[in-house]
């Protein structure tokens, strides 16, 4: 007797791109195509060329009952396609899925909401669409209204709701779905921080009740707090499958592969190149003293000299999001680039970033009217801040979900 909730075997999904495909054709065009086909066959050509791509390719995994599994990966990795197949919205091209239990899917909030209908009517409609029976909806009606905090507006058409109310109501209905298996796709991306916390809380409660949860998100913090297991999808295949920490680390390290290329060999850069970055090195010897140095070498392709260029190092987090812009002129450090280039050392002090992977993108431009960009390389180098005792209290501070360390104090009366 197995306690498997979901068994996926060699799942594949192929999409056809471009060319003439169903849905783009009009009836007239399709008639013409049909007539053309015998001609083409006689001429020896195959059917009109179509590119295909495999959104999912030989994916196999299993989920036991009661597990909360996160699915992560870059955009286009196949996460949504996988969820759509599990939710029976689309069929696979290959492979097989066995599901034991009822599946409730949240791929979007407010599916089926109609603006002309009132909040009350939409609760019934949306609930039915999601798969609840009428009796179930009646039973849970009050809970839903409480969760959404819209009881004064129940009989107003939803088109008059604020976007916040709309989303709260939509999620409230979906949150009271009681399936054995819950499949959720990034619905937490909508709404304000308060709402997101409420949603995450509700989902944790659901997971703790022993239901199986499949959760797709880009929010590593949410994934880590909700799930025990995680699957990493990359270009349609499983790149990692295991416990949360391992998989999330695999994701973070794989997403920064251009790191290994020395900046002089990088071809994917922007700018005229009249001045360019030949070398970039990060000296992290003093990292435990919260200090870091970036050594840059700039080369000059032209015969002329450049007074007052603008140099900036953009500091990025592990997901490539900009954290800080270290520009020379803000701190009154004019740069002059002669015929044989320049060497610049940039020191960062009192770093209060949490341990993790970071990158730098150097940027060079002229400060003349035209603002010519000389060179700009995205993620030219990376560095890692190791665990360290920021507060000097003899232990490593707990940093789950944090971005920076703050100097703070308490006064207790």
């Amino acid at each position, binding site marked *: 007797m197995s306690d498997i909730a979901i068994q996926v075997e060699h799942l594949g999904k192929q999409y056809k791109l471009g060319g003439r495909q169903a*849905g783009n054709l009009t009836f007239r065009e399709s008639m013409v195509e049909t007539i053309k086909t015998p001609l083409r066959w006689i001429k020896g050509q195959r059917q009109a060329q179509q590119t295909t791509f495999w959104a999912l390719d030989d994916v196999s995994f299993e989920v036991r009952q009661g597990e909360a599994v996160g699915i992560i990966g870059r955009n286009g990795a196949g996460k949504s396609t996988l969820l759509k197949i599990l939710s029976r919205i689309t069929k*696979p091209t290959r492979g097989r899925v066995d599901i*034991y239990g009822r599946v409730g899917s949240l791929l979007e909030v407010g599916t089926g909401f109609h603006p002309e*209908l009132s909040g009350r009517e939409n609760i019934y409609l949306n609930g039915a669409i999601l798969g609840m029976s009428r009796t179930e909806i009646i039973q849970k009606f009050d809970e839903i209204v409480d969760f959404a905090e819209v009881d004064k507006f129940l009989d107003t058409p939803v088109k008059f709701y604020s976007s916040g109310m709309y989303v709260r109501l939509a999620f409230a209905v979906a949150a009271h779905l009681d399936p054995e298996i819950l499949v959720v796709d990034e619905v937490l991306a909508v709404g304000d921080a308060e709402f997101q916390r409420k949603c995450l809380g509700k989902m944790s409660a659901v997971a703790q009740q022993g239901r199986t949860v499949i959760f797709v998100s880009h929010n590593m913090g949410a994934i880590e707090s909700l799930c025990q297991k995680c699957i990493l999808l990359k270009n349609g295949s499983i790149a990692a499958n295991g416990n949360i920490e391992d998989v999330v680390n695999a994701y973070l390290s794989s997403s920064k592969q251009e790191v290994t290329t020395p900046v002089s060999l990088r071809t994917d850069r922007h700018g005229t190149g009249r001045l360019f970055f030949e070398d970039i090195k990060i000296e992290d010897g003093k990292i435990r003293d919260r200090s870091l140095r970036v050594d840059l070498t700039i080369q000059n392709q032209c015969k002329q000299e450049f007074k007052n260029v603008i140099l900036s190092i953009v500091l990025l987090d592990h997901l490539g999001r900009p954290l800080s812009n270290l520009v020379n002129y803000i701190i009154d450090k004019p740069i002059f680039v002669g015929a044989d280039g320049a060497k610049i050392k940039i020191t960062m002090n009192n770093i209060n970033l949490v341990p993790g992977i970071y990158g730098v993108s150097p940027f060079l431009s002229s400060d003349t009217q035209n603002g010519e960009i000389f060179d700009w390389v995205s993620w030219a180098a990376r560095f890692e801040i190791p665990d360290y005792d920021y507060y000097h209290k003899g232990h490593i501070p707990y940093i789950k979900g944090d971005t920076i360390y703050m100097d703070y104090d308490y006064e207790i009366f």
Partner: protein
Amino acid sequence: MQQTGSKVNGAPLNHLVIEPPKGWAPLELKELWRSRELLLFLTWRDVKVRYKQTALGAAWAILQPVLTMVIFSIIFGGLAKLPSNGIPYPIFTYTALLPWQLFAFALTNSSNSLVGSQNLISKVYFPRLIIPLSSVLAGVIDFLVAFAVLLVLMAYYSIGLTPAALLLPFFILLALVSAMAAGLWLSALNVQYRDIRYVVPFLTQFWMYATPIAYSSELIPLKWRWLYSLNPMTGVVEGFRWAILGKSSLDIYSLAISTVVVVAIFVGGLYYFKRMEAGFADII
């Protein structure tokens, strides 16, 4: 609905297998039955929204057949003087307009029903058959309203019901099944070929004149009667007339042919729809 903890007491969990589609798909009528509440909800939604949005609301359900009856009576009854089986022309044509309007409503609304619900289809699963079916069922309300007007007309013309009226439910059902049959084909075809919905208004016009609404099928020469009966609405309309008014030019052959055609189109439509269903979310 299902409770949790079924793993503990060994009660079997719902086992679902998801596999690539293979040609003709099974109808899965049991699943459709289980989703009957959703069918009613969607129908209710369509009706409610329609009545909220139009200024005329329920009045439209009356105005349309009545105005058509008036125009037909003037032009075909009065000016062209088409024979109407000895029955006053207005009610002769109104009885036919009733099932016809249900059918025409279905043609128009169902053809775009799937494409119009693309946000539902791409985000939630439920048996897709519900969508065209609910768009057709929404027309039943209009039908009932227009039927009430028919009763008024019958009182006005002092026409009593005959025992033939007992068969009325059969003809109503036949009308409904014809409407659904058309709906299934058109909605599925429209997903693939988006110009279908532009063909529908023309198709509806043409079909109306091919059906004995403004005239009696007596006008059709006997040797062509069989061809004429291939139009499923012929049997429906003449049958309706016969059930309500007691006389029409209905003959059993005609009716039999029409019924067989309706059932064939309906069942064919179900299978065609289910076969295409797997691909809807991908191309919609």
